[in-house]
């Protein structure tokens, strides 16, 4: 009996499985279309456009490496854009990480009202970048801004901020630090995941505050640090809105706010040099992928995953 029934049941099962497979594919169908139309096609097309002369009205014309040669040999703004974006990323990312980590550590001391502080720290992240940049333009106004009024009252030197080319990027970095609340909340959640027993064990072993932080808390938090670091790098390399509102597409004053992303925007949508803009975009993409890869590679030395500990 059983032997006879088996094939029938299996056929029944496979019919069910097939129906499930069809249903599954239908459920993810929008995403398959989305990936093809908004990820795969654009990446391939960006690469292709970067080897062409393309003004969007006429079809792209193959020009080989000429866009890339032009970027490296005759585009002086390219170097400016790279320098500005690198300056911004190299300072705002580490500062943001340290600030949010310190805030999270203080919040994790189980002081009263943690919930309120957490919400208050997050609030600035809600302000649309256009609004927050204009607010900072006002606060840091060289002559009437409240920051400089305050600094002068104290007898301190008052920089011209967004009017002085050497102070525009520090001002933009201040603006980015203002939105450290998101990273703070992520760090705090990571800290709360650390088992209290491990910290107590370290205390019994005689580890002081400082040692507990470096030897226990930071290693256990390192995956979260890595996450915030990678996200910060990807985001800050592509910084655009804040810099564009301050310096428009010329990077005023004197090119000091001309970010790399501004260059791409300007080439594509002001001069309609889509091929050239694509070449710039491909270079930035390669830079981001390389930096991310290096971070992940180096992270093996300092990121600690709990799973490994159990295996060892």
């Amino acid at each position, binding site marked *: 009996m059983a032997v006879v029934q088996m094939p029938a049941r299996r056929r029944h099962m496979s019919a069910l499985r097939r129906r499930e*497979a069809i249903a599954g594919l239908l459920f993810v169908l929008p*995403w398959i279309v989305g990936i093809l139309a908004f990820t795969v096609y*654009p990446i391939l097309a960006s690469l292709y456009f970067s080897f062409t002369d393309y003004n969007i009205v006429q079809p792209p014309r193959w020009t080989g490496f000429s866009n890339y040669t032009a970027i490296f040999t005759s585009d002086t703004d390219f170097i400016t854009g790279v320098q500005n974006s690198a300056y911004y990323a190299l300072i705002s990312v580490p500062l943001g990480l340290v600030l949010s980590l310190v805030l999270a550590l203080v919040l994790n001391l189980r002081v009263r009202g943690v919930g309120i502080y957490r919400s208050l*720290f*997050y609030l600035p992240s809600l*302000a649309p970048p256009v*609004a927050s940049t204009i607010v900072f333009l006002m606060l840091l106004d060289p002559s009437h801004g409240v920051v400089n009024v305050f600094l002068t009252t104290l007898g301190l030197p008052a920089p011209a901020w967004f009017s002085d080319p050497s102070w525009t990027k520090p001002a933009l970095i201040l603006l980015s630090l203002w939105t450290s609340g998101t990273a703070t909340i992520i760090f705090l959640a990571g800290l709360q995941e650390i088992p209290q027993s491990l910290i107590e064990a370290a205390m019994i072993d005689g580890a002081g505050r400082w040692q507990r932080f470096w030897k226990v808390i930071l290693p256990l938090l390192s995956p979260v640090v890595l996450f915030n670091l990678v996200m910060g790098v990807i985001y800050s390399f592509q910084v655009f809105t804040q810099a564009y509102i301050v310096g428009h597409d010329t990077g005023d004053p004197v090119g000091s706010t001309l970010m790399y992303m501004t260059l791409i925007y300007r080439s594509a949508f002001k001069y309609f040099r889509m091929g050239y803009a694509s070449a710039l975009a491909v270079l930035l993409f390669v830079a981001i992928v390389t930096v991310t890869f290096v971070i992940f590679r180096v992270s093996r030395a300092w990121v600690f995953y709990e799973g490994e500990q159990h295996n060892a």
Partner: protein
Amino acid sequence: MARQLGAKVDGATVVAPRRRLRRIIATLVPHLLLALVAFLFLWPFYWMTTTGFKSIEEILSPNIIWFPGVWRWSNFGDVLNYPGFPFLRYMVNSFVYAGSVTIGTVLSCSFVGYGFARLRFPGRNILFAFTIATMMIPTVVTFIPTYVLFRYFHLLGTYAPLILPSFFGNAFFIFMLRQFFMGLPWELSEAAKVDGAGEFRIFWKIMLPLVRPALIVVAVFSFVWTWQEFFQPLIYLSDPDTYPLSLGLFAFQGERTTDWQLLMAAGTLTTLPLVVLFFAAQRYFLQGITMTGLKG
């Protein structure tokens, strides 16, 4: 290790009277630090809102003026009636834009997330790995061809390029919702299957209501991020009447560079809806940020 411990204990017994003072400092210092940072973080908000009510003389005063002498609601009226800058219209546009993207994202991501979590189909694992990989792809390599694509379909200047992609899913939210669907008990869907319910019915009637908190997280974040969006509207929209608030505010700043009372009133109008949303759905925000960070 033992010597260290001994030294610590000795030290503690010798300085016993100082410990109380140290404990007071230990509780006071964090509070002072947090209060200071909270003050610094909130202060730009405070300054934006109050400046929106000030007169230009108060703004240009060489002294710091903490409160406007008279609360000038008229500044807000001036912004709303400013010729050439229809702020009410911008606000409606922003609501329609962010609302549509939210609907599109929640719908598409819950379908796709469910498919990945609960249904077996060939190629599922590869497709899912690919989905994770796309989270790391910076938008910089996708926006030019996407623009070309929408130009080809004569959709430049409309909201289609801004809204349509959201109906095709978002890697980040798909991943999040998948985790939620995976956590639901399998007995539920099997029981429904025995009762003869189809996959769609199980999803729509049984599973979807169970992940409601996660759907709210997706909804609030896509709403906020769309409301804040500047770059996409900047490249796709050209008619000022179609601008969302972010772009309208930028254009307004170009016109009234240093009329801070008007700019701040407009900035307050642009920010306020998100602040209201935040206080209405606070726990979903905090939950969402926590999840994204730790699952990453």
